[in-house]
């Protein structure tokens, strides 16, 4: 079962009992799931349950060496979609992607990798 990882995350994040939800506060940091993919096509969805005023999320795909004490998309090891303005980020550079998303929205993430590793 793919869940939020307990040991592959910034320790200050709060993971729910069922390991399907995460809550953060203060500065950006990251949690990854228990399973990675290396070839083929994969898709997952995230629902934004609660987003207080002034808060933001960056969701997407990350490789093993992505810095967990930084937002996803900070370095070359991650690709993020930000809630604020819907900006996409990679290597700390934001580019326009969509309109903003927030509480109640469901985001979908597709990755298409070559079939050979």
């Amino acid at each position, binding site marked *: 079962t793919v869940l939020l990882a307990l040991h592959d995350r910034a320790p200050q994040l709060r993971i729910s009992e069922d390991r399907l939800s995460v809550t953060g506060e203060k*500065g950006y940091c990251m949690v990854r799931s228990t399973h990675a993919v290396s070839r083929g096509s994969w898709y997952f969805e995230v629902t934004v349950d609660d987003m207080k005023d002034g808060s933001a999320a960056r969701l997407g795909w990350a490789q093993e060496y992505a*810095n967990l*004490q*930084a937002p996803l998309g*900070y370095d070359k090891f991650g690709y993020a979609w930000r809630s604020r303005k819907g900006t996409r980020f990679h290597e700390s550079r934001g580019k326009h992607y969509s309109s903003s998303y927030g509480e109640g929205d469901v985001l979908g993430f597709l990755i298409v990798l070559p079939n050979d590793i």
Partner: protein
Amino acid sequence: SLPMAMRFRHLRETAKITVGVFRSDIHGRGLFCLRDIDGGEMVIEYAGEVIRSSLTDKREKYYTAKGIGCYMFRIDDKSVIDATMKGNAARFINHSCEPNCYSKVVDILGKKHILIFALRKIIQGEELTYDYKFPLEEDKINCHCLSRKCRKYLN
């Protein structure tokens, strides 16, 4: 002999009359004691902005680009004290290869603080110094501590 938390609370009141910033023979300005200090005495906290470690690279680049001297002190893997833009007189303590003080990270009521202690009795007017303990690096920084056991480089 008093608990660390009690000594720390007392430090807030005393540090300002114990030490002062003056011109240093070692480098630029330094911190000097305004009265005799006993060996083991808690002298001053290295105070500043508590930032996550992941922010240091960006800040260092920013300060270097602006020609601002960078004053940072690592607490642990997670946090760093950045005294470059907000801090206290402890940021002026120079390095020495034969120091009269030492630094220690102390947990007080769940929060970590960088505290400077006297290694020995320090006479009024002496400059306070501690060993920066910089890691070894290719690009060397010259040491001007003037001590007999000077290691020539800070790193």
